[in-house]
Every structure is written in C-alpha cells, then in structure tokens.
C-alpha cells in the first residue's frame, strides 16, 4: 500500500520527491543511486554559457542562506554534450530547468532540447531578467508569464512546469495565467530576495548586494504561497522552500503540493531526500491515508 506514486503532467513518478534546481548535481551520484528520486532537476541551463556573478556568492545568515550564483552554467550545447548523457543513466524522470532573456530565446532553447532523448519535463525559471521588458523578471507580470507559457506550450509536448517567484504582490494571478496558457504544473517557490551587510567593513556580504534567500527561514512563506496557489489552480504543484524534514514535506503536501523538492537542505544532509521519501511513505501507512488523499488534505 501507499507507494506514493504520482502523476505530474505527463510524467509518472515513483515517489513525490525531487531536488531543487541549482542545489544538486551529478556529484551526489557517488553517495547514492539517484534513481531513487522521483525525478532529477538540473541546475538552470541557458542558451549560451554563463560565467555567473562575481564572488562572494554564498552567505550564511543566522537562519538561512543567501546566494547570488548568477546562473553560472556551461550553456545548452555543453549541457547536451556532457551532462545530459550522464543524467540519462538514471532510471527516473529528468526535469531540465531553463532560463533565457526573451520569449523567443526560451522557445529556441526548448526546441533544441526537444531534439534530445531522455528529457521528461522543462522547468521554466521565470525569475530571470526579460530584456524585452526593461530587464524586469518575466515572473513578475501575469501577461508575460501567459505569453511565455503559451509560446512554450506551442513548442513542446513535454511536461511544462513554470517555476514561480514569491517576490510578487499576487502569486495567484501569475499561477492562473500559467495554467490558462497550458502549463502542466507549477513549481514554487524560488528564493526570496534577501541581503546581509558586514557591519565592520560596511560592505554587502554578497558582491551582488541582493541575493536569493533560501533554507528553513523561508518555509512559512513558501507554505502560504503553495497553499494560496493550490486554491487558485487545478494543475499539480511541485513545492519547495526550506524543506528540511519529513514534517516540512508533509506540510507542503497537505497544503496542496503533489510533489516536493529539497533545495538548500541537500547541502546540510545530502541523503535528506531519501529520508523524506521514506518518511512520507511511513506517514501514509501509520495514518492510514493514501498519498493521493493526503495531497491538499488541509482541514480548514
């Protein structure tokens, strides 16, 4: 009983747990068989190689993590040549996270990737600047999210997941537009904006001044975003934001997530995903509830 299998868009997952983009890599294959995960999510890939931001890129704050990696990645061609064949070796779903600076660039990227076998879904990182809109992030404008999603929907048949940013007035509006335009699912949340200052030097601790805030501190914020979006849409949600225990994962599932992703906690405990997979299953058994019924089972 309670195998916790799920359907996410056109994918079947053996369990509802994946890793958050940018917080995991093939390096961890030395520690455990990555096929044990419900899906693998790559770091975000862009059309061209990206050097990333100047260091300092990582700051640990009192109760969370700030990063400004700047999407350092080798670009899609190198990804296809080097990483993709490695990812394909694992018997699980592969979600490729992608980003670009215009709708057309996004579409070409998907087209290029679509020629490759072994990709099950795209996760669209809309937290990146849109050159056609004064560099403001795609993800802040419901109409742009609609247009982008629609274009990508016309481009690919694969599962299309839009990854939403929490740094907006109404995440529901954006989620609804992604749904309306044909997204198969939503991923949330990306990092909050955060900052830290060294009071001795009076310099920002990150070279980029403002970075993405993740880890335990953001969990309550992520949870309310997931809950609100789950009320607003019918497509499945891949939830993330500070998940560091089975209990955390369960909160998100009960709030309405179909699947969850572990991010920053991979750095703390690289085997945390496996513990969470087991823990969810144990909860379902001990509470005599099917995983399907657990999703969105919040009692309000």
């Amino acid at each position: 009983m309670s195998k916790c299998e799920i359907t996410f868009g056109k994918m079947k997952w053996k369990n509802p747990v994946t890793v958050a983009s940018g917080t995991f890599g093939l390096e961890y294959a030395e520690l455990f068989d990555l096929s044990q995960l419900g899906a693998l999510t790559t770091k975000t890939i862009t059309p061209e190689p990206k050097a990333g931001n100047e260091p300092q890129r990582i700051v640990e704050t009192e109760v969370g993590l700030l990063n400004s990696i700047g999407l350092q990645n080798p670009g899609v061609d190198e990804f296809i040549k080097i990483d993709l064949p490695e990812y394909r070796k694992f018997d699980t779903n592969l979600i490729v996270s992608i980003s670009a600076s215009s709708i057309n660039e996004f579409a070409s990227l998907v087209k290029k990737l679509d020629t490759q076998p072994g990709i099950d879904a795209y996760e669209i990182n809309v937290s990146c600047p849109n050159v056609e809109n004064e560099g403001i992030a795609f993800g802040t404008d419901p109409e742009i999210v609609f247009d982008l999603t629609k274009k990508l929907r016309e481009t690919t048949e694969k599962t299309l997941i839009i990854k939403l940013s929490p740094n907006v007035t109404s995440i529901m509006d954006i989620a609804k537009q992604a749904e309306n335009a044909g997204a198969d699912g939503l991923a949330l949340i990306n990092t909050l904006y955060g900052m830290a200052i060294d009071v001795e030097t009076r310099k920002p601790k990150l070279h980029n001044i403002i970075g993405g805030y993740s880890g335990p501190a953001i969990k309550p914020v992520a949870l309310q975003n997931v809950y609100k979006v789950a009320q607003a849409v019918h497509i499945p949600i891949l939830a993330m934001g500070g998940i560091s225990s089975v209990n955390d994962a369960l909160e998100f599932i009960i709030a309405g997530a179909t699947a969850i992703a572990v991010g920053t906690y991979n750095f703390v405990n690289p085997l945390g995903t496996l513990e969470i997979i087991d823990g969810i299953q144990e909860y379902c058994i001990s509470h005599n509830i099917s995983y399907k019924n657990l999703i969105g089972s919040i009692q309000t």
Partner: protein
Amino acid sequence: MYFKKIQVLKVESVNDEYFVLRIRDKELTQNIKPGQFFQIKDPCAVFPLLPRPFSVYEVEGDKLSFLIKKVGESTKHLSLLKEGHIIQLLGPLGNGFPLVSNKKVLIASGGIGYAPMTYLEQKLKEAGNEVWFYHGGRSSNDVFCEDVQNCTEDGSCGHVGLVTEHIEKCFDSIYIDVAYACGPEAMLKVLVGICAERNIPVYVSLERVMACGVGACYGCVIKIKENDSIVYKKVCKDGPVFDGAKVIWDE
C-alpha cells in the same frame, strides 16, 4: 566520497585557539590525498546550517584527524564535543596536492594553513622527495611542531619575521623544484611572486565559503587564468589546490 555519521573519538585542545578532532573509520580513511578535505557538521546543532570544510590533518590506519582553529560558531561548537558525540562527515573532497617524486620540494604554511601540510609532507617523503618545511605564525601559539622551520612574527618561537622572508633566504641557498603552500592569501600571494621570479611551480590550497562542498552549487568560485581568458573555478571541486601562477587574487 562518503557521507557518514560517526562518533567523535577525541577532541584534544592544542591551546586556546586550536584543537584536534579525531575520528576512526575504515571507509573514510581509504585513499585520502593530502590537501583533500571533509565537510563536517554536528547534525544536532541546526544552526549554523551549513557544514564547514576542514582539511585532513593526519591519517594513520583507520584514524583520521583534523586540526581546527576556533574562529566562529561552528568551530567553537566542534571544540566542545565529547567522545562519542555523533558528527557527520562528507568526503574526502577536492583535488588535493599533485604529488611529485624524488624532487627537492618546499612546503610553506601560515597559521591554520599548517593543517593539510604534515600529511602532505609524509606523502612527499614516501615518494622520495627531499622536503624543506617552513611554517609561519603570529606567535608560538600558531606553531604546531618543532621539526619544521618555524617563523613567528613576534619572535616567540623559531625564526623572527614573516615566513616568506625566510623562504626567500632558503631559495637563495637551495634549488627547489616545486613548492606547496597553504595559508593566508596575503602570504600565498607573496609566495607565488617569489616563486614566479625563480620559475618554481607552486601549488596553493585556497579557502572559500562553501555550501555544497562537492561542486553542485557554484558557490565557492575563484577566478583562474585559463588559455588567455579568466574563468570561475570551484574551490571545492576544481580545488582547493590550484597552480599559484593561475590564481587571480582578490583585491
């Protein structure tokens, strides 16, 4: 690379500032290269969240130790652990020092940069090298062994003055094939300069704040010269040891 939760064998105070953390494990001690490191954390202490990187200090059979300087919360916390307390280790990580054999080599360390160097010295000697080992510190507190050329800024132990000054003198009298260094960046920068003047290859072990420690997050990068261009390399995976001549130092 292993991820394991194991018991602390012993925490030994060296002095007010330094301590040695000892563990014992068959798997973890296999095939460790000098200059490699482990990400260590007490899983019971939720914050600081991230594990901290520490170089391998001594390896002896299935025993492994770390020489650690108390600088902040995690290191202070580790210094207080008792025998039997469970800690988590991820490693060995990083590239480690490239070893040569049957050469005349220099080892240069500053402060806690001493940590990876005794194991390096051992391996270099096993490979038939002749080793000159210079170590510098602020005072006798930062000196860990009497068998090396110690230099202290306050003269409280060994030679007086900066370790790099004494290394320059050494270079004047002995022909060195290759140098290995770990320590404060100011020292490494000077040393790389001294070596460049003499065309001595020098490998430096660098430190950066790390998140994953394995190469997954791109958090720990430094700038490295590579075929006329400058690229970001990961200290945790591409390093921590780099060819000193290729490092672009932070201002």
